[in-house]
């Protein structure tokens, strides 16, 4: 900090905290408190986060940011570190600023050894000017939100540009056609003069065993360029419903996954690679495995919630890749299925690229896109029970169905429906309030 007494932050932080308290009384979270403090004290975020011994980790990617941020946080905590992290989903600069504000003292101090932040890829580069990352983890590039990003390679570039801002480490996906070429961005073919580059990945056998591979975007721009052979610091070598084996520096670590699916196993490899490079010799396979064993799913991602005397399994997706990988992770066609998308996902044309053979039927289709989903499933020969665009009525229909033998009902939903459906069945807390 420039002035170490921190008194210059007293008024700005207090102002932000007062606004935050007011916002809480009014009900609902707000990014506004962060705005108040940062406009009164522009260096506040840099100074607070600059105190962290291990710096700041950015978690970027088309898919899996919340889950991986959660995994990395828990693994680091399992090694005794005090970790500051932003609530899952609150990944825009003002939201991050508000969460830093909430945790810091009026003198601009935040007791943590490291910050692990999931950051929206569109804002990451700009945010790096305010809160410079020491480590950047990029998970994957998938065809996602084209209405927002136009072209997938633009998203890849946003993330790669941000990674180059890392002062110490870059960790990225060896199996991703865009990301695996990051070393080319450094003059000497490697980042020897800047951050070091580490990779996570999956063994050939694991990838070959997945019905639709990893669903990362094809790199058409540099299709002719070989990514080169990289050794993965953490490599997924085996995965099943319950867990995964990940070789970290060649040593196998058996982890229990908080939610099932190949993408969660790869997220775990990403978290372990990042923890290993940050902790160095202090990384312990035992502590990492213990952290995974105690981990709960990230909010709404593979969560099991009580629904009367039954359970609801939330399968949440936001694009073709996450829907396909979640469907591929179903061990058998689920007994009772609700499928819902609303206008929170504006363009769902990609559902025609999904292989729905993991479902033998859907009981209830709901949300504003219900008829569009029904049309696609009907054309694909998936048996449909009821189409009911109103979510509340649809949930009542699911409630009225007999208890499934597994005791579990599967709800395949987009993010916005996940939030609404949780509330409908009595789980009232919002994502950023956990």
């Amino acid at each position, binding site marked *: 900090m420039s002035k170490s007494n921190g008194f210059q932050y007293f008024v700005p932080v207090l102002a932000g905290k007062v606004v935050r308290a007011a916002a809480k009384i009014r009900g609902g979270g707000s990014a506004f408190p962060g705005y108040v403090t940062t406009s009164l004290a522009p260096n506040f975020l840099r100074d607070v986060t600059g105190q962290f011994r291990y710096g700041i980790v950015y978690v970027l990617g088309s898919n899996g940011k919340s889950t991986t941020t959660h995994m990395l946080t828990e693994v680091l905590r399992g090694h005794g570190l005090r970790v500051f992290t932003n609530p899952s989903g609150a990944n825009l600069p003002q939201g991050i600023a508000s969460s830093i504000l909430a945790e810091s003292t009026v003198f601009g101090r935040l007791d943590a050894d490291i910050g692990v932040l999931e950051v929206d890829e569109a804002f990451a580069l700009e945010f790096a000017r305010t809160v410079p990352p020491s480590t950047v983890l990029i998970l994957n590039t998938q*065809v996602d939100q*084209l*209405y*927002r990003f*136009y*072209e*997938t*390679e633009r998203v890849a570039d946003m993330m790669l540009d941000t990674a180059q801002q890392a002062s110490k480490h870059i960790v990225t996906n060896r199996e991703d056609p865009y990301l695996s070429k990051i070393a080319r961005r450094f003059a000497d073919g490697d980042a020897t003069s800047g951050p070091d580059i580490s990779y996570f990945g999956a063994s050939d056998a694991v990838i070959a065993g997945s019905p639709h591979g990893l669903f990362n975007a*094809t*790199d*058409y*721009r540099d*299709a002719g360029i070989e990514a080169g052979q990289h050794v993965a610091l953490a490599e997924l070598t085996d995965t099943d419903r319950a867990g995964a084996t990940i070789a970290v520096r060649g040593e196998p670590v058996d982890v229990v996954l908080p939610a099932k699916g190949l993408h969660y196993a790869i997220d775990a490899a990403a978290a372990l690679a990042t923890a290993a490079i940050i902790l160095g010799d202090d990384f312990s396979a035992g502590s990492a495995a213990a952290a995974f064993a105690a981990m709960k799913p990230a909010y709404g991602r593979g969560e099991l919630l009580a629904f009367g005397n039954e359970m609801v399994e939330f399968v949440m997706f936001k694009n073709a890749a996450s829907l396909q990988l979640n469907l591929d992770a179903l061990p058998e066609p689920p007994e009772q299925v609700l499928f819902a998308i609303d*206008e929170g996902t*504006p*363009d*769902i*044309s*990609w*559902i*025609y*690229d999904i292989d729905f053979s993991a479902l033998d039927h859907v009981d209830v289709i709901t949300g*504003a*896109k*219900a*008829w*569009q989903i*029904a*049309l*696609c499933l*009907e*054309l*694909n020969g998936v048996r449909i029970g009821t*189409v009911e*665009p109103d979510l509340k009525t649809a949930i009542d229909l699911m409630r009225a169905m007999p208890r499934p033998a597994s005791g579990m009902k599967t709800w395949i939903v987009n993010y916005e429906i996940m939030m609404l459906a949780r509330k409908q069945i009595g789980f009232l807390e919002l994502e950023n309030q956990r």
Partner: protein
Amino acid sequence: MSPDSVSVTLLQLYPEELGVAGDRGNVLALKSRLEHAGVEVTVVEHRIGDSLPTDVDLVLVGNGPLSAMRNVYDDLFSIGDHLRAYRSIDVPLFAYGSGAELLGHSIALPDGSTLDGLGILPFRAERVTERAVGYISVDTPFGRIVGFEDNASRWILDPESKPLGILEVGSGNSAGSVEGVLDAGAIGTQLGGPALPLNPLLTDALIGFIATRRGFDYRPSDVNATVDRYATLAREVILANAKHVFSRI
């Protein structure tokens, strides 16, 4: 001629590179309706380096990013004469998004350069800075069609050429209140969703072009009743939501 003795071939160009917007759904909708009408359907997916079949009854091409367009560019030009030959014998065409632009005269890019097209469809495209995103509704000679548009392109039609329809909601060609291009049995459009599952009347119009050319009687089957009902209800919701839901994007 009864459709039962007919077999048709649908040709989809570059299903991976130019197929990021559910373009397979267009093929699926055509195949399903043709088969329900008793027609045997073969789908040929053309990939870079493949040779084209001689007899084709409909050509489809879809949407993809600029990098993917550049990727297929040489191959597309190598099959250009073939595609022109199909059009010269009135093989119908359904082209969506950037695939359609590659079949137009040219595409002006934001960096000031121009990508030549094959000149099969009578328009040229200009990439613009403002993006058009949201539901779209168009009044066409076949009836009203609705869908989702997502592009940063302006389409400028040749002086004598016709649009696919008059714009009711959305941005369409971003030039005049029209959408797409219609040149006898060739359709170019920026209406996605994908268009054909959502709009059975447009699918039927394309099948009508095939039937006329091949000389069989096409009547949509009653087996389509369920998908038609879903499509009708999907379109009603789209029209109801078209004007307000995406104001925040």
